[in-house]
């Protein structure tokens, strides 16, 4: 048992070391959200009319959710890179359970994603977005839940893919639609009915709305539903990740 915990710790640490050593990953992960905030946020501030505040405020939770989605999924997908560069073999023959490997990897990926999320929140605040700081503890729990769900989704997908070619498919058919349908950039309650229904099956919608509630004190979804749906999603993705990763052959 102790050994399993040690393994989880070292796998977690490896994710962090790799993240901080790769300057391009840190900068790259913040470039796009910063660009969205700066251009969309300030550019559309006077054009877009949204309930409860200005447009920049409105998209901040959405951009943070996006950072979590991208960062987490990317971390999960690195299982493929580990496979291609051979390191996966080293972890697979080690006398630790596959569960510990998935847990370590997920906690590591979630940690780096949350760091990126907090950085972008800081940037938004520096750009003048006023947020409710009292809800930060709950916000962190929500971020952890969201990140863990997406890392494990990434691990599950990576377990099914032989090489990075499938990655483009994941970006185009999962990540981008998930982001655009989540209501990160537009209010869902005023969207056409069809878009609204689709957005309800998009787990990122609940992440965005939860963060909007916590940071800006308004949302059309109660926090209980947000945590309920995301909790369910987390259980599904984690079970899938553990199950599929278990079936991996070198």
């Amino acid at each position, binding site marked *: 048992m102790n050994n399993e915990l*040690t393994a989880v710790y070292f796998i977690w640490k490896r994710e962090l070391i790799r993240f901080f050593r790769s300057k391009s990953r840190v900068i790259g992960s913040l470039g796009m959200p910063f660009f969205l905030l700066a251009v969309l946020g300030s550019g559309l501030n006077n054009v877009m009319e949204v309930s409860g505040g200005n447009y920049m405020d409105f998209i901040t939770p959405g951009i943070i959710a996006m950072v979590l989605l991208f960062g987490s999924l990317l971390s999960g997908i690195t299982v493929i890179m580990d496979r291609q*560069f051979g390191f996966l073999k080293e972890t697979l*023959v080690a*006398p630790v359970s596959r569960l510990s490997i998935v847990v370590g990897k997920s906690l590591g990926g979630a940690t780096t994603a949350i760091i990126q999320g907090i950085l972008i929140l800081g940037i938004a605040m520096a750009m003048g977005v006023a947020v409710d700081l009292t809800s930060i503890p709950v916000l962190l729990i929500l971020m952890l839940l969201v990140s863990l769900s997406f890392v494990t989704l990434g691990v599950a997908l990576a377990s099914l893919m032989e090489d990075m070619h499938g990655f483009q498919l994941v970006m185009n058919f999962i990540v981008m639609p998930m982001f655009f349908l989540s209501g990160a950039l537009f209010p869902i309650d005023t969207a056409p009915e069809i878009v609204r229904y689709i957005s309800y099956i998009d787990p990122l919608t609940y992440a965005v709305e939860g963060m909007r509630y916590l940071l800006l004190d308004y949302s059309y979804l109660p926090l209980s539903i947000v945590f309920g749906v995301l909790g369910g999603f987390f259980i599904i993705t984690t079970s899938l990740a553990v199950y599929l990763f278990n079936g991996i052959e070198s």
Partner: protein
Amino acid sequence: MYAIETENLTKKFDSLTAVDHINLKVNEGEIFGLLGPNGAGKTTAISILTTMKKPSSGKAFVNEKNVVDEADSVRKNIGIVFQDFSLDEELTAYENLDMHAAMYGIPREKRKERIEEVIEIVELKDRLHDLVKTFSGGMRRRLEIARGILHMPKVLFLDEPTIGLDPQTRKHIWEYIKSLQKKNKTTIILTTHYMDEADEMCGRIAIMDYGKIIAVDTSENLKNSLGGDVIILESENNEELEKELSKLKWVEKTELRNGRIYLQVKVGEKRIPQIMKCAKEREIEIESVNLHKPTLDDVFLHYTGRRIREETASGKESMRIRRKAWGRK
């Protein structure tokens, strides 16, 4: 007790049978070689024994534990140096080793000590805190070896461990591995393309071809099974000398080819003086004598009809195909 035992172990990839009903028994503390050309199934066999791949049929046991049902306990007792690169390039040598040691349950205070010990053996002490991506190919290989022996496994699998290493380093590493085997009774399964290495290191050798094991024995017995040494003679009167020599009862076979006499005998070095004497009595002058001791390569040729060395050419062939696939000539 066998360190390794397999029963009709088989692995199929679609229509290709990479490992074909192999039955092996390896004793504890043995250095056991797997010899075979590219694609023979050596790595696949090792992958199954190290729990990385599941067999299609048949059974395998490592330290009497089933590699499928008891994979966890198998993993605790094995170490492997993979044929392909398997380090984390973004980490330093130390971080790679430390993570490995931790995952194999070596307590923190012992880790540093062990790391210092193995890094010394592979002569990378001054590069310990450098990122692996700054290492040369040979240095990476050495680090992989250091990692494989770090946790002192009971059974150590070495898949082409010394490929690309200079002779001196190779010697050094083999010495250490031999000492491991002596001191800790470590069982070692090794594949190598260096036949002299296999010859010198291995107690027994299994010859593998197209997924099957075609012969298992000590290197000496395998070579003896070819019928002994070959003495090659040139003389002023080959025909007569051959006739005379073939009358001797210790000469097993004679052949006249390309102006040379080929004699098959046991322990050739002892027979050369007798041959000289026989020739002198018949007053036939011998111009040259050559003694050829069988090598593992000859053994391989004998069992498969091909030379293992020719496979390096097929390696070039596959490179050529790969280059073609990339659109270059």
